[in-house]
Structure formats: C-alpha cells, structure tokens
C-alpha cells in the first residue's frame, strides 16, 4: 500500500527504515554546520565596537532559543496528530522532543545570563522575554514529569497530548501577560526579513549557519530519540511475549 502520502511514515517499520537511512546524514550535516558556524562566529568575526567580544554569544543564544520555541510547536503538532489520527510515532516523537527543547531553553537562559551580566549589569531581570522563556521551561518540566509519572504508554501519550494543547494556550497567555508589564530590557529582533535590518553580514552569515545547524541538530536528536523509544517499546513487547511462552 504505497500511495506516497506522508502518513506512510506513521508506520513504525517504514519510519525506522527511512530515519535509519537519513539520520547519519542529518547528524553529520548538523555537526558540520554547528561546528563550522560556531568556529566562524567565535574566531573569524570582528568584535563589536560597543559590545566587544561578548557579542559572539549570540551564535549560541539565538539558535538555542529558536529551537527551544519551535520544539514546543513541533510537540503541539505531534500531539494533535496523535489525538486525531492515533499514530504512535507522533506520540513518541513528541516525547523525544521535550528533553531537547528543555535543554535548549536552559542554554538560551544561561547564555542570556552570561551576556546580560556585562551588558545590562545583571544576570537576571524580570524582563518579559526572559520571564516568558523561564515559563516555557516550567511547561517543559511539567510535560516531561507527566510522561515519566504514568506507566501505561497510551494513557501517558493521551494525557501529555492534552496537557500540551492546554499548556500551549496558557504559555501564549503567559507570554502576553509578561509583556503586559513593559517592553523590558531585552532588545527587539535583530534579524528580520524586513528591509533595513540592523545586522551586518559578517555576523549574519555565521548566525544563519548556526541556526540551520541547531535546527538540524534538533532533527537528528529527535530522530534518534524517537528510534530509541520505538526500540524500547519493541523490546518491552518481546519481553512480554517471552514471559508468556516461558
């Protein structure tokens, strides 16, 4: 039954075959882009005339933040796919994405603090963007905790999917609630598709390389994590069968 639709890869066997072939390439390309982009950004770009060399933390900070937010959006889509079409691969992919997103959120917060100390004179401020990001981290924690607390796999997938949907609404609400205070310390977007962007290509090119690299890194970790989850489930199924016939 090969109709060329995307839903074919909801079949774990087909997903395993395709992801097994794609994974080394994605991982390799991610390693090249992240390694190259970071090296380029850290050592081959000039210092900013006001920020000095601290500006270079942007090559970690922005890609990590990008992945942190988009990982949640990917979890939202996967949760919807699970709730509507009951494809197990989607549920397992959402489960595998959560720890990656949480770690990226921590990297974003940590690099932001390291940058903020010399620039703003403080490690942390209750700035709306910072607050919203910290709240996102709390949502990741709750999601991961709920996955690990429930033993039955399908129940866990259902409940975490519902939590992801409701959590998304409240995360967005919290973001606007935090922006309710003030615009805050954090600068607006430095990158934008609109004309008259404020960043020189000397920084933009390595930054784009890092962003692409981090995105591919996320995809690679996601594929590897999902494959691990599928294997773990097969292993459990085999163990149960062994015990039945033993």
């Amino acid at each position, binding site marked *: 039954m090969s109709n060329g639709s995307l839903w074919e890869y909801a079949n774990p066997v087909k997903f395993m075959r395709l992801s097994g072939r794609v994974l080394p390439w994605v991982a390799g390309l991610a390693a090249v882009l992240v390694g190259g982009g970071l090296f380029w950004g850290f050592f081959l770009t000039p210092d900013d005339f006001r920020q000095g060399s601290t500006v270079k933390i942007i090559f970690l900070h922005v890609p990590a933040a990008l992945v942190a937010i988009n990982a949640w959006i990917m979890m939202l889509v996967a949760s919807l796919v699970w709730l509507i079409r009951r494809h197990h691969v989607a549920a397992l992919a959402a489960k595998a994405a959560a720890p990656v997103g949480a770690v990226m959120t921590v990297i974003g917060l940590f690099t932001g603090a390291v940058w903020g100390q010399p620039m703003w004179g403080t490690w942390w401020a209750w700035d709306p963007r910072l607050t919203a990001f910290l*709240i996102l981290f*709390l949502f990741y924690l709750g999601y991961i905790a709920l996955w690990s*607390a429930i033993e039955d796999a399908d129940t866990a997938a*259902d409940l975490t999917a*519902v939590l992801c949907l*409701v959590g998304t609404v409240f995360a967005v*609400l*919290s973001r*606007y*609630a935090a922006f309710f205070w003030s615009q805050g310390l954090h600068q607006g977007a430095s990158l934008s598709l609109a004309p008259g962007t404020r960043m020189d290509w000397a920084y933009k090119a390595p930054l784009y390389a890092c962003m692409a690299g981090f995105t591919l890194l996320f995809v690679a970790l996601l594929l590897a994590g999902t494959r691990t989850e599928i294997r773990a489930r097969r292993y459990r199924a085999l163990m149960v069968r062994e015990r039945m016939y033993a």
Partner: protein
Amino acid sequence: MIALLTRDLRLAFRAGGGFGLGLGFFLILAVLVPLGVGPEPRTLGLIAPGILWVGALLACLLSLDRIFALDFEDGSLDLLATAPIPLEGVVAVKALAHWLTTGLPLVLVAPLLGVLLNLAPGAYGWLVLSLLLGTPALSVIGAFGAALTVGLKRGGLLLSLLVLPLYIPTLVYGAEVVIRGAAGLGVTTPLLLLAGITAGSAALLPFAAALALRVNLR
C-alpha cells in the same frame, strides 16, 4: 447536577472534608510573610497585593487533589462517568463546588488579611473584586490538573508542577488589578483580561478535563 453539587458541598463541610484547611493556610501565610520580611509598614504595603494573590493561589492548590481523587478511589467517579449527565457537566459542577468551598471563603477573608499586610486603603474593593473574578479560573484550571493526575499514586506534587505554570496569567492580571488599585490608577484593562481568562477557562477547560478523565477511567 444540583444533587451532585449539594453532595459535594455536604462532603466538603462534614468533619474530615478538609473545609477550612485552605483558609488556615492562607492566614498562616499572611502571618509568616511579615515575620520573614520584617514589620516595616511601607514594605508590607508594597508587596501586599502580590502576597495575597500568591497566598490565595497556593491555598487553592492545597485542596485540588480532593476534587476527583476520593471519587476515583471509591468508584463513584465511574458511576458519574456513566450517568446520564455529560462528564463535562460533572467537571464543571465539581469545579464550582471546589470554588464555593475554597475560592469564595478566600475572597471573603482576603480583606482581613489585607489589614495585617497594610494594604493601601483604596485597594480593598479591587482586591475583593479581582479575587472574585479570578478564583473561579483557579478552580477550573485546577480541576483540569486534577483530572490529568487522578490515576496516579503520588499525584500531589506532580499536580502542583502541572498546575502552577497554568496559574501564571491569572496571577499576573489579578495582582496587577490590586497593585493599580492601590496606586489609584485605572484598572479596566487587567480587570477585563482577568475576566476573559476566567470566562475562557470555564468555557473550554471542562472539555479538556473530561477528556483526561475518560482516558484515566478506561
């Protein structure tokens, strides 16, 4: 549905129903904060709106796991799920009962604790109004969290980890109303947003909670 409401209320008011625990917690919090921060009236007045709102939120949290856990254990939740009224309605009624036994008493006691914390004179009305508008949202969101964790052995701590992030918007707008009221500024915007969150949660979350309950009961 009214029978269910009166049943839940009666259970809560009976001895061992846990009624008043939240109130006691709220009182203790309002006593502990000045002991920790120091009795300087100006400082206390500044932080009073936030403390009262955080206190109300935590007091609400304490009794959340009772919404479904007892009924889940003795099997009456299964009966309710197969009863002719929709499960969404059951959730809404149980959230209402929780609000009547936890949220409403907190609203009534909050002005007294405001005196302890040297709340600005102009803010009392706004404190009561914001809590009155905001605490129903706390009960409904809490009912959703309780529905998610009802099947778990040690769901209590997980419940707070899940529910507290969901309380953030309510807390921000609720406390903002009181802060602005204390400073004599216009409070319309946060008040409307707070009311919007309550209305939206009350309208939509019973469906999510009922979905979670069905998953937990299958």
